[in-house]
């Protein structure tokens, strides 16, 4: 890498305490330091309730940390949000029932003040990207869960945000659809070159998708280990079925074992072993 490139995300000494001082105080995050480089795909994994969603919301400026700072492409998280740097997707697709598929994708563009022809052109483009061209005029309730989630991803990407924040977006899907969606996401990611932070509690999902997996420990949520993922050479195909070949590789099993070991040691309370916390090697 040449010279100093501003990282995509710098989380520096972040604490997040809910209901501080009261009886039901929850320390959700403690001393979080993470750096995510541009174009990186980073997963956050950890037991339920360990603060993954909280961390994503802090990065997305939906929650103000009680200590520390978050910078996104060199600016404060709040400016990044005002500048519409974030695309977000949640476990619930969160489509707006009263808007047809195309209108859902156009919503962020509408808020961003795009002209109608530009919006329409972009939503067509996005529908093509997620392979739902024929469903522009359907209402959300007419789509399956997987299709709704693809619309949500199209919507999150429609305004070409610098950073995609995803909170267990495939958590509610059945296993088959889930693997298909993972391949689709990877295809879209490699076509667009966005930076992604992805919350999951599925080890294979994290390994399949990510360049790095950040393992969080519960209460207070701390970075327990960071596992660099290397699955060997990428599959040179835009065909999702062929991309699935990766799941059969020896390296895939090695990496899942490594992440599983890190998660096990979280539960056992021993320090993690893989990598040094939060430091990118970029």
């Amino acid at each position: 890498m040449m010279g100093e490139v501003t990282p995509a995300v710098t989380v520096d000494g972040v604490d997040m305490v809910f209901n501080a001082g009261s009886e039901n105080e929850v320390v959700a995050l403690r001393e979080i330091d993470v750096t995510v480089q541009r174009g990186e795909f980073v997963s956050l994994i950890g037991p339920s309730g360990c603060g993954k969603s909280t961390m994503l919301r802090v990065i997305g400026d939906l929650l103000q940390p009680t200590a520390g700072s978050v910078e996104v492409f060199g600016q404060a998280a709040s400016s990044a949000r005002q500048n519409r740097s974030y695309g977000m997707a949640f476990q619930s697709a969160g489509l707006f029932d009263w808007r047809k598929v195309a209108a859902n994708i156009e919503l962020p563009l509408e808020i961003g003040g795009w002209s109608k022809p530009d919006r329409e052109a972009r939503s067509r483009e996005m529908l093509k990207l997620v392979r739902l061209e024929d469903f522009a005029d359907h209402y959300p309730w007419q789509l399956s869960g997987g299709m709704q989630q693809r619309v949500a991803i199209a919507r999150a990407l429609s305004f070409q945000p610098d950073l995609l924040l995803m909170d267990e977006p495939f958590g509610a899907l059945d296993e088959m659809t889930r693997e298909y969606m993972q391949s689709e996401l990877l295809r879209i990611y490699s076509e667009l070159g966005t930076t992604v932070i992805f919350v999951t509690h599925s080890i294979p999902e994290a390994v399949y998708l990510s360049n790095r997996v950040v393992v969080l420990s519960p209460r207070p949520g701390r970075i327990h280990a960071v596992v660099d993922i290397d699955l060997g050479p990428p599959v040179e195909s835009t065909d999702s079925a062929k991309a699935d070949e990766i799941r059969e590789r020896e390296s895939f099993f090695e990496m899942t074992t490594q992440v599983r070991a890190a998660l096990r040691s979280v539960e056992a309370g021993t320090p993690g072993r893989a990598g040094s916390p939060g430091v990118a090697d970029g």
Partner: protein
Amino acid sequence: MGERMNGLIPPVVFGVAFLAVWELAVVGFGIQEFLLPKPSSILEAIGADWSVLSEAAIQTGIIAVSGLVIGVVIGALLALLVTRFGRIGEAATPLAVALNATPIVALAPIFNAWFGITSFRSNQAVVVAVVFFPVFINTARGLLEVHPDQLELMRSYAAGEWSILRRVKIPNALPFFLTSLRLAAPLSVIAAIVAEYFGGPQNRLGPVITQNASVARYDSAWAAIVMASILGLVLFWLAAALERLVPWTQTGGEG
């Protein structure tokens, strides 16, 4: 269209059978007409009193519909206001609950004192007060019960309060609002007639029922009751049709 006609057949068959049993029961058991007139006698009375009844139904209908519109507008606007400014909501909610626990028609004599015993305004005020509450509560729920993820999405787009209200909260509340309208529409007729029992102009369904009953013209009283239920049904149907127009729900859109 054909399916819709098919859907009408069971209630029509049931209705005709019900009237036939009623007619036969009155004749067969020798029930006195002042206790329960035959449907055919009621029909006759409707024909004989048609000019009085139709005028009364129209006048009562005007009170019910105008009161309904005013009550719905006030209920919806107040819901917007209260949900927009949380403080007001907290302060106003106990009051609204107390108001709901009050049988509003009990206020009819008070409204007569306020608006004048011969004024239609006092009847209209009862309708407004009765209709207001379900609309207010349901609309407020629809405005508040937006999925938290959707609000976070809007914030991530840096959308302003007004934009969130217009693009998310109001469309989210629309089905709730329309449901409350379907509840409120027949209520408006009930409220109008009960209010008319207590006062207001005399050429209305309420007074027509009480006057005929007091001189033992029960077939005519029943004729007015039938007109009242037709009025309630028509308003209910209109509101239900409006509800089915919403194209984005599984039940709506195709009706």
